[in-house]
């Protein structure tokens, strides 16, 4: 534990959330709110910040779990094909005229897609009564390529403008964040988070190797399955909230390990909070850079995340798990 860094970390997170709420191309003064300000704050900015926090938390925590479970510093929830599967399922839903739930239809189909793909990856990764990291990773990469290709195929043969625009949504868009989806998604994310936190000691042991974890008394295959399930639940919920936002799952665990250490008991929640704050920040930048136009947060996270990631890479030994 590093108390000073911890305090700075929490301070930065709180600062970003406040900025995301009140700053932007148009400032909102929290001490003298007009009716319009209150309206904008309540129905536009607050859901945006909450969705950004939830998504970022889900992705950050998922990244931390996956890097531990797969024992691979490259792992990211999207590398397993979950996002492309979700996009594909949403696109197929739109093509077949699935629009019974109004504006909830796309998030719903995306969630179903993400959950199905997670199960599929799990099924491919399953052998001799358990999940095997290499198998999971390879199955995920294979499925990811397959789904991306099919999605591209659909996009290029379809002349449906609606489909194209709905798929735009999949590239990480928080501008339409809305209270209606938040409770359901939050439940999934809280359940996932609870599962991980209760298993963080097992995660710590598993990073050191299956034999080691086994000798410490952990049922490795069972723990791995639970952690994988928690990751799938959180990632699916996050995809249905605002589409695909890259880089958070990969980047946040590395930053947190660099700043606060690699103990999973702290790493998972801290990656979650850092992910949430980072996405809030990306969203703030996305709507402030070229007003009145909005840039999708997914691209902002990559543009700001990648250079920092490369900087970390230059520091020796940081990018281990």
């Amino acid at each position, binding site marked *: 534990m590093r108390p000073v860094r911890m305090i700075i970390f929490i301070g930065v997170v709180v600062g970003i959330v406040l900025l995301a709420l009140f700053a932007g*191309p148009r400032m909102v003064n929290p001490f003298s709110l007009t009716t319009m300000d209150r309206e904008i704050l309540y129905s536009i900015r607050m859901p945006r910040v909450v969705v950004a926090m939830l998504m970022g938390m889900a992705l950050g925590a998922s990244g931390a779990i996956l890097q531990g479970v797969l024992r691979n510093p490259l792992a990211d929830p999207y590398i397993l094909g979950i996002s492309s599967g979700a996009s594909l399922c949403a696109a197929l839903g739109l093509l077949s005229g699935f629009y019974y739930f109004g*504006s909830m239809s796309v998030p719903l189909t995306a969630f179903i897609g993400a959950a199905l793909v997670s199960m599929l990856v799990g099924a491919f990764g399953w052998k001799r009564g358990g999940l095997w990291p290499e198998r999971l990773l390879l199955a995920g990469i294979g499925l990811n390529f397959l789904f991306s290709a099919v999605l591209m195929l659909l996009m290029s043969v379809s002349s449906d403008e609606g489909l194209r625009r709905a798929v735009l949504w999949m590239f990480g868009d928080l501008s339409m964040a809305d209270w209606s989806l938040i409770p359901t998604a939050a439940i999934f994310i809280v359940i996932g988070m609870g599962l991980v936190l209760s298993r963080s000691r097992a995660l710590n042991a598993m990073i050191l190797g299956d034999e080691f974890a086994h000798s410490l008394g952990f049922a490795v295959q069972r723990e791995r399955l639970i952690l994988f399930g928690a990751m799938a639940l959180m990632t699916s919920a996050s995809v249905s909230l605002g589409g695909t936002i890259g880089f958070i799952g990969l980047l946040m665990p590395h930053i947190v390990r660099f700043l606060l250490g690699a103990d999973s008991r702290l790493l998972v929640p801290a990656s979650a909070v850092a992910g949430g704050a980072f996405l809030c920040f990306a969203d703030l930048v996305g*709507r402030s850079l070229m007003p009145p136009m909005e840039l999708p947060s997914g691209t902002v996270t990559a543009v700001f995340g990648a250079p920092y990631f490369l900087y970390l890479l230059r520091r020796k030994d940081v990018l281990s798990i």
Partner: protein
Amino acid sequence: MITADKKYEYYFTAEDAEEVRTNDSDGQGTSGLKTALIRFLSAFICVKIILLLIVCSPPALAAERITAPQRIISLSPATTEILFSLGLGDRVVGVTSFCDHPPEAKKKAKIGGMSNPSLEAIVGLKPDIVVMTTDGNPREVDDRLRGMSLKTYVWTARTLAELPRGIRELAGVMGVKENGEKLAREMEEGIEKFRSQKTGAGSQKKVVYIVWPEPLLVAGPGSAIHDAMALLGLENIAANASSSYPRYSIEELIRSSPDVLIIGKGAGMDIRTVAQGVLKKLATVPAVKNGKVCYVSDHLYRLAPRIIQGIEELAACVR
């Protein structure tokens, strides 16, 4: 403008036609009788041609008729609509997969999308001319087609004001000057009618045209919709955006408090269902509060003749 002028190189002018005729009557025989016969025949033909010209049509038109392209491919939905409005529907042999208006256009052979048409499909249709647009077709396609010595015509008009000129120009190339003149004049009269109405309306209403609700895309400057709004004396709240269909900030939309909200027709899905979410967020905006939300057709999306009906719809929304 330079590129537009350059496009004229390929189609025949009256001079070319003259040359063809002189070459024909230039046949030199060896024997006197033969020469006389040919002379007589050619004179006869000449007289007949002259007679035909006098009886049927002005000479320029006759020249055009010989050279007017018979097999046309259109690489954009807007030019497809214009070609059909010019009465050239029968001569259009290929269109893009986005060309859905008029309904007959859907029956034409498809050559692919706007940004990625299939060169092979285009060449396979043996077109006399390929109509392209600077608004959506990549320049490379033009270069490739001309590299294969196919004729292209590039449509350059991008604003409502340029539309009649564009129609005249295209009609000239296609050899249907009269139809072009008629259609262009209809457009001008339509535009003029709305312009004169505007002065009566007086107060400037703030409007926004939502092209797609999630993510929020609105019509910005450079789109035909923006021109139509300006024509009707309406203030487009997205006038300060930097592209024709920007992803607009919903916060900014609320702040500019539009008086009328116009929602365009979506392809594929029922736009009313898709728009529910955004309307809920805009509940406090004057337009939504006063029930001034107007669903319109897709007439304004393309710079084509039915844009006049689109302006009519727009005018009805704000009346």
